[in-house]
């Protein structure tokens, strides 16, 4: 708990290396939307969330729903780095019989709180968890990670309405605002801007940050926790493929594994290849 900024940065470097190696080994997967989430998930699991890797089903743990389930390589990596399972297991991603499915499965992987993969459904589940905490008089918090293409799904807005209606202030969403979806830029495919005013109109507290800046993220999660009576969303401005020059801002690496040469080059750039 409460790692220093240099420690967080070092974890992020290691995490990027694992994400690249595991997707390369699998031969398929989603590097772009995993790399954009590195700092968000490192911050959450290192310094924000209450959780116990030895007791993944601890009833008082904070919950996390990765609604953009295709980003699971980075979540698996963070879980492994926190001791939920061996890091070597990361290299079994997407293989027959592996606990690490191509999209998160809560019945297979320790530390996964909700099965996802079909976009647009996670925020609703997160609201259910938040209301469950209230019913059970538990003080755990629920986090939900959304993609910016994902919020084109209508269900996200049904959930946005319900979250403020039920005043779930124990819920904090994070929007991975990397500006890209599969077919291109979100604003040319199906514009989602302006995002913050939309959530504000639905009754949410919004906080906008640089999603790769640990200081800003730490402060945002703290601020979100202090807001009462309504849900919060952190709009994390990120870069898809962050850390690898030829993946940054590129739709090509939304759902494509790096080749041998690309992996070598990418590992050099992220400096996470030495573990």
């Amino acid at each position, binding site marked *: 708990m409460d790692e220093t900024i240099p420690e967080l940065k070092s974890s992020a470097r290691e995490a990027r290396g694992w994400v690249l190696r595991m997707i390369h080994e699998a031969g398929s997967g989603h590097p772009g939307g995993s790399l954009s989430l590195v700092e968000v998930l490192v911050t959450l699991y290192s310094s924000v969330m209450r959780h116990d890797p030895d007791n993944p089903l601890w009833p008082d743990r904070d919950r996390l729903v990765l609604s953009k389930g295709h980003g699971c390589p980075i979540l698996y990596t963070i879980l492994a780095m926190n001791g939920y399972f061996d890091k070597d297991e990361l290299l079994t991603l*997407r293989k*027959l019989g592996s606990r690490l*499915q*191509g999209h998160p*499965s809560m019945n297979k992987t320790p530390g996964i709180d909700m099965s996802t993969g*079909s976009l647009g459904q996670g925020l609703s589940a997160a609201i259910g968890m938040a209301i469950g905490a209230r019913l059970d008089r538990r003080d755990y918090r629920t986090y939900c990670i959304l993609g910016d293409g994902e919020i*084109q799904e209508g269900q996200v807005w049904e959930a946005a309405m319900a979250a403020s209606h039920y005043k779930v202030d124990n819920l904090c969403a994070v929007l991975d605002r990397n500006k890209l979806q*599969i077919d291109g830029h979100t604003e040319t495919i199906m514009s989602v801007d302006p995002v913050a005013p939309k959530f504000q109109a639905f009754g949410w507290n919004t906080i906008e940050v640089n999603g790769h800046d640990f200081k800003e993220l730490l402060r945002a999660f703290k601020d979100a926790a202090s807001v009462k009576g309504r849900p919060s969303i952190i709009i994390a401005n990120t870069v898809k493929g962050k850390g690898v020059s030829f993946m940054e801002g590129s739709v090509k690496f939304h759902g494509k594994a790096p080749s041998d040469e690309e992996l070598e080059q990418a590992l050099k750039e992220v400096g996470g290849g030495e573990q």
Partner: protein
Amino acid sequence: MEWKLKNMRPGFGEALVELGKKYQQVVALNADLSSSTTTHLFGKEFPERFFNCGVAEQNMMGMSAGLASTGKIVFASTFAMFATGRVYDQIRQSIAYPKLNVKIVATHAGITVGGDGASHQMHEDLALMRVLPHMTVIAPADYWETKKAVLKVAESPGPCYIRIGRTDCPLIYDESYEFNIGRADLLKDGEDVTIIAVGLMVSKALEAAEILSKEGISARVVNLSTIKPIDKRMIIGCAKRTGAIVTAEEHNMIVGMGSAVAEVLADFAPVPQRRVGIPDVFGESGESEELMRAYGLTAENIVENAKIAISMKR
């Protein structure tokens, strides 16, 4: 057997471009998967008639219904998971019930989706679509049948669902093949048992027939690419001639093509039937061929079931 492989999906994309040239009323909709579904080909050629709806499939189906009501021939496309289950009610209420001219072409159906795992492996789509009145349901066997089916359904107004897979698959046909809606295709004649297959399982059925013939068993093979309206005459004829049926599909064994065949047999020509398909479980991540083996979608399993069906004859 040695197969030449070719992906089915470009069969759809290329046919769609041909249709776009032929008919001004053809429009195409997609939900952030235009390259994977190959509808980007149409988008490039006819940008003003191509609508990328973003990650919002329910809205795409509703928009398709509205466009169809203005006389357009509408092709709506995404992965099978999101083209059926996600939007079932939109299809039922806004497309099937009003009998609108929307062709839903779904790619990435079945276990051969592979690494993406259970959340993306659609084994229920044939079931969901075939219980809808007014809906035509087609599962082509290869690239050529996909292309011909897409061209053909454009000529026939009304709701239609076409299911295709992700992987490269064996070529069963060539350019001369003529596809007819509602007509099953007898690929190989035989006396002892009939194997009725759809999609990728058609090639496995032909392989099974070859294995069986080496053991002295003569098997018919039928490609039942139109699941609805179903070719009753073909199924009844096979039942009467061979007296035993095996069905094979990359779909849940419940309520898929095998069940549709069983309904015809029960009503008109009861003979023993065995079904090969996904045994009512969710899938998982893995390589396509490896998964087909793990879930019994093999020529060997068809052979075994053919023998059981034959042994059940009275």
